[in-house]
């Protein structure tokens, strides 16, 4: 009902090429802020890259040992730590999180490789033409650059089982749409900024669709509900190209 909150229309999707906000890219220290009294957000300093994300994964692993935490939500080079009860001294929490960040060594998650068959072009590729206009590439080149890429699952979020994939060729980066598609189908293969992903729900979506994948990403009744996990490698295999 409130489209800007639906997956994945958050403005982060086109946030990644330029950062008018000086922080955190130009800082050496992480930025720590709060959401309400129980949740603390740590934003890593530096670029939006695999090195930063690996350190976020390491931090998440370290924080799993903290009994006071109820939930740990790694984001895109950031992490939300949700406490079970409101901490008495927020400054002490901030100091402790900073210390944990300093200690967090980069870890390399040896994830699985997921191969996703994609029909490029066709009825679901509603934004392929716009992508060609934006990039100056032909549709064939856009598709080739997309399926030749090797992607890393940075984090899951926004919708059940949705994986934010890093590793998109800079030549096919494209900002999200200012006016989201109101009813983009589950399975659309999309580009949002320097990220790509596969829509897991039918609904409003601000990312740019270039194809379609019939691949079950989430089953709430399965022992492991989400197919993707942070650190996994994703490859897109062109099943068909309809241009």
């Amino acid at each position, binding site marked *: 009902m*409130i489209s800007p*909150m639906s997956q994945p229309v958050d403005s982060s999707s086109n946030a990644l090429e330029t950062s008018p906000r000086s922080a955190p890219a130009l800082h050496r220290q992480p930025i720590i802020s709060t959401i*309400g*009294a129980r949740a603390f957000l740590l934003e890593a300093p530096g670029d939006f890259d695999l090195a930063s994300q690996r350190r976020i994964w390491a931090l998440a692993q370290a924080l799993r040992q903290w009994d006071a935490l109820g939930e740990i939500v790694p984001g895109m080079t950031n992490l939300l730590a949700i406490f079970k009860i409101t901490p*008495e001294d927020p400054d002490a929490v901030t100091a402790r999180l900073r210390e944990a960040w300093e200690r967090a060594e980069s870890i390399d998650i040896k994830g699985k490789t997921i191969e996703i068959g994609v029909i490029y072009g066709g009825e679901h590729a509603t934004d392929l033409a716009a992508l060609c206009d934006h990039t100056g590439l032909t549709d064939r080149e856009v598709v080739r650059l997309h399926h030749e890429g090797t992607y890393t699952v940075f984090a899951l*979020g*926004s919708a059940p089982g949705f994986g934010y994939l890093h590793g998109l060729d800079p030549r096919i980066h494209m900002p999200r749409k200012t006016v989201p598609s109101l009813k983009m189908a589950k399975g659309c293969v999309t580009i949002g900024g320097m990220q790509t992903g596969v829509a897991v729900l039918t609904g409003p979506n601000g990312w740019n669709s270039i194809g379609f994948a019939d691949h079950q990403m989430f089953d709430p009744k399965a022992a492991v509900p989400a197919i993707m996990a942070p650190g996994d490698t994703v490859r897109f295999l062109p099943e068909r190209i309809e241009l």
Partner: protein
Amino acid sequence: MIEILNTGPLNTIQDIGRPGYRDIGVTASGAMDPLALKIANLLVGNEEGAAAIEVQTFPFRLRFSAATAFAVAGGGRATLDNVILPPWWSQTAGAGQVLELLPSPASARAYIAFAGGVDVPLVLGSRSTSLRGAFGGIDGRSMTSGDILQLGEPARTVFAADGLGVVPPATALSALFPVAADGTLLVRALPAGEHDLFGADAERFWSQSWKISPQSDRTGYRLSGEPVRPTAPVEMRSYGIVPGVVQVPPGGEPIVQMSDANTAGGYPKIAGVLEADLWRLGQARIGSRLRFVRSSHAEARTLDQAIAAYVDDVRSTSQMVARALKTIAGR
């Protein structure tokens, strides 16, 4: 067994929610007014977080197929076979009796709990309906007329014959949960990450009153008022969020994320509502006004503790009454 006779759209089964899965993109969901849910459950001898019916569109009518202890808390005006029930009330209905809920002016949502709880399958540790994910509750959907709900095994069998009520939290805790003289809801919040990037507009965010727009639902509330904007465009990387986060999309009118909040966001966030005030926001009606009041961790703890004490008080009183009735019944 319960038969739903009449229901508006978007009434769902909710329990205390499904936290713990945000890292795979799963929204916590759960009651918009968790305090009313807890009280309704405690009055019928359930665990405080058991599954109940959340009614947010009225009129709502259901029929009991057998004698059943139930409680109604939060909003709504309830009648049992056309006899008016007091607010925040529990009673035992007889087989065939009809419970009806009409809207109440002050509160948006009512919770109907039943002894034993609503028996729908647990999905990811919760019975809450996730409409967006299409799972939980009744096959992931809203209730429709004709739905039949099964109930779990009640924890106790003896209830006060004439019913039992509690003093609503807004009354019992009125000193801690103030409302402005003109009826504006005062919502305690802490500044969030991008607060200071709003420059002078940040102060206006706190000082003006905001109206809850019709584009508001369990996902979030869109607020209308004079827009607030950061002094320069703010671009964010996707970050995890929790209900209560106040984000500002480019238009400058804030959105407060609620129970069905997305798990990640990208808009700059100006504030985060204290969890202790979320139940009041969950009861705020479309068209009503609120103002954000800058708070502190210390105040948050005080409020958390006051709510916990109120809930504990209802739990122990309810248990005490149940024990006394059992003793009397055993004579």
